[in-house]
């Protein structure tokens, strides 16, 4: 599955639009990580536990979006957007959305590189 956060996939031509697809997941942090994070709030800096937690969750949201796109018969998702929001005191929602499309390799790659936006 090709993914891009542009309106197109450079080097490819969109032959069919299949509509909006999205994937989300809500993750709560667990107590052990919270204690570590509390300590980090004293010394500052990166909270690795949270970074991992959120990036794992984001990958899952993306995977769900890809699954939805596959179900529609797409081979690419364009204009992918990601967002994070804290929905409760101890939980965050990770959300990924984009447009499922069918693409094929651009025969005239030279023209594509000139202006990938209008392909």
């Amino acid at each position: 599955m090709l993914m891009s956060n542009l309106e197109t996939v450079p080097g490819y031509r969109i032959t069919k639009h299949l509509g909006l697809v999205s994937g989300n997941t809500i993750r709560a942090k667990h107590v052990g990580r919270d204690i570590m994070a509390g300590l980090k709030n004293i010394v500052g800096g990166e909270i690795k536990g949270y970074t991992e937690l959120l990036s794992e969750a984001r990958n899952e949201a993306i995977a769900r979006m890809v699954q939805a796109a596959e179900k529609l018969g797409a081979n690419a998702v364009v204009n992918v957007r990601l967002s994070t929001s804290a929905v409760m005191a101890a939980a965050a929602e990770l959300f990924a959305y984009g447009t499922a499309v069918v693409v094929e390799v651009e025969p005239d790659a030279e023209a594509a590189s000139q202006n990938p936006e209008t392909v």
Partner: protein
Amino acid sequence: MEWLNPILQIAIHLILVILGFALGRVRETRHIRSLRQRERQPGPALTNLRRLPDGMRARRTVLCLGSVVIANDYYKAFGASLKHLVGGRLRTLETLLDRGRREAIQRMRHTARAAGAEIVLNVRLETSMVTGREKASGAVEVIAYGTGIITDD
């Protein structure tokens, strides 16, 4: 013994402020040094333009992502809450977000380079609060993402 309680609380607070100041500064200096070093390394060009520069041909694309959750130290959080009384520029938070953003960008750049990308188009940066329980001591998540382009040559 009742009268000891507030004194104990203030003492703990003071210790945490001093600890935060000392360790926070060391960690910040170390982080900025590591950022500078990584920023100097060769890697893909980054842009928030949406089209490839003329003369570049895309062979493959890959979505590149970098994220980091970063927290303020106790001393800075304390300073920021004091600053709230008078308002104005919160320099400590500025440096925190700057560090987070640079770190996220470097991580995105790292994934882009690992994938063999020449350039990353349409780079987006997003910031969100992930812990909102306490006033100033929350942590922020910064993500950077864009479309990495692997060129023909």
